[in-house]
């Protein structure tokens, strides 16, 4: 009688090994790429109740971040402006623009505008804006070029390892205090970010925490 298994079955093991190897590689690669904050968070761009354009206000009108996010230099978190702040201008300018309906509504009723949150750190990590902006870390470093965004999206993964990249080597990001809120700042020609950063780091004695306690309480 003949073999129970036909000849071709002899190749199955080899094929199997190759397949598994390939699938495995894809799996690892896939998880590596698709399941990390780099992919899951970056680019998150929800539609906001008010089509507020940072590009317009910051880039064209040249408003300072601190006009709206007024407490960023003193408080742990950078506040979202109150309706009051918006109305300060928009009672005169574009007072009837339909885009601003939600704001006027809120001003009338006293019900706040509820903006969709974009940058969300987990509850157990405590980030403090004040200490960063006062010590030469720009908004740009964590939020990207918000000044050019029509609608704001998340520009950086803001994962723990991402934080650590800077906390371990702040010299790559520190800038002159005056330029912290200047979203377009680049090191001038001949200036080298690293060297400058090193200088600041020593002068200001910048020692960012890298143990758990720095952020987790």
């Amino acid at each position, binding site marked *: 009688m003949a073999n*129970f298994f036909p000849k071709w079955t002899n190749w199955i093991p080899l094929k199997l090994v190759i397949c598994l190897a390939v699938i495995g590689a894809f799996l690892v690669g896939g998880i590596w790429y698709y399941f990390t904050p780099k992919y899951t968070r970056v680019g998150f761009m929800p539609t906001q109740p008010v089509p507020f354009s940072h590009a317009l206000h910051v880039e064209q009108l040249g408003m300072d971040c601190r006009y709206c996010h007024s407490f960023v230099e003193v408080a742990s978190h950078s506040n979202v402006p109150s309706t009051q702040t918006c109305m300060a201008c928009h009672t005169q300018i574009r007072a009837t623009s339909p885009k601003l309906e939600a704001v006027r509504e809120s001003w009338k009723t006293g019900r706040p505008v509820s903006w969709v949150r974009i940058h969300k750190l987990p509850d157990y990590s405590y980030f403090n804006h004040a200490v960063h902006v006062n010590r030469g870390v720009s908004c740009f470093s964590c939020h990207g070029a918000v000044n050019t965004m029509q609608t704001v999206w998340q520009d950086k993964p803001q994962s723990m390892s991402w934080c650590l990249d800077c906390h371990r080597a702040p010299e790559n990001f520190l800038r002159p205090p005056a330029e912290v809120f200047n979203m377009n700042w680049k090191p001038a020609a001949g200036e080298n970010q690293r060297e400058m950063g090193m200088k600041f780091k020593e002068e200001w004695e910048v020692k960012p925490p890298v143990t758990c306690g720095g952020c987790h309480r």
Partner: protein
Amino acid sequence: MASAAMEIPHSTFHIPHFFQAMSEATATIEEKVTDEEKAVVRPPLVLNKRTMGWISSYISSIVEDKTPRWWWVSMGVTVPMTLMCLSMLAYLISTGVGVWGNNHPVGWAWDITNFVFWIGIGHAGTLISAILFLTRQKWRTSINRAAEAMTLFAVVCAGIYPALHVGRVWMAWFLAPVPNANGIWQNFRSPLLWDVFAVSTYFTVSVLFWYTGLIPDLATIRDRCTSKIKKFVYGVMALGWRGGNRQWRHYEKAYLILAGLSTPLVLSVHSVVSFDFATSVIPGWHTTIFPPYFVAGAIFGGFAMVLTIMIPACAIYKPLHDLVTINHVDKMCKIILLTGSIVGYAYLMELFIAWYGGNPYERAAFWYRAFGSYWWAYWAMMFCNVVAPQLFWFKFFRTHLVWVWIIVQFPNMGMWFERFVIIATTLSRDFAPSAWGMFHPTWVDICTFVGTFGLFTTLFLIFIRFLPMICMFEVKAVLPEADPHHGEAHH
């Protein structure tokens, strides 16, 4: 000659006849030993001049014949137990570790006790296969297969506990050293992480070892079976083994190496488990004697469990007594006696050092073990592990299966008590009296533990039903006619 097997009726399994069956078995063995065999200096490993054909056909027949009633009966008992175990675990995960009795200060109780208990049982198998193989103990051949299987199933039961005793099971992947978005890693100095590596390695290597041993026997079944499905399944599992010497020579080498690797592995696993305690600062845990004493204990409990399982198995499949002879039982009893005494020595040495070391915390810890609120556990341990096995000094108790079976139940219980004493009592009273407290098991604790026995037995039943429970090719290899110079003048 395969027909020889067919004449032997399979004794169907009735609980009341169980012990009777065993004692009969004992009796029959005695008379079946012929004068010639008696004359041989070393008793033959296989009795009644069984031939290779008989071995293949009988052992395979266990797998091939239709499922006996007792099998269904026992499954009917053990499967529900397994389900109970699983539902308890579901409740645990959904509700919190609080459903167990653990508390402050007793952060570990039955969970780790049961873990160490099962992992201990999981030692005999690989030990028999590996160490006895290296020491060329031919008598191992008839028991190592079942023992190895037992190892695997015990490790499965053991694994449940460290995996699920943690507060946030869904975060347990933190234990795996993989790169992650948090950029944080494991603490490789933690005995618990050593455990993770040790236990998983042990399980994997044991599986490989076991399966490697199975290949030729699977081939046997493949070549005997008739139904297409079986042909396919066993065919695939046998990987196309042909038994050519060019295969045997690599095969034997590999088997030797695996044995060589497993031997230190077996010793390391329980040593690492003992590090969980030995490397801590808690009086009663902080002890250098732990590794050897844990290993001895593991072998002790492991062999006890092998006997607990093999004796009934042979009572059911009477002819197996020609392979698993009284001689095997006798040897295992001796090992239990030895290891039991080692363990007993360790207990006494602990007490001595506690007194001699002059550390008041240490002294207190051992005082409480013996005379504190958990005195009953301590003395239960002492009796079961040290006193009871001493009966094995007497040949009578080593050679009468009913007695053997009864006596080996004490190590089984005793080893559980030992772990409970070491873990729960020590924690219940350590440094600061203000923080002392008792542990009381909850119904969940109990049901989970009982359930693991169900799981263990279920897996074992499945094993003896579908896989050759005795290593046929090795048994054949120890038959006299296996010797290429058998019956030649110069031999």
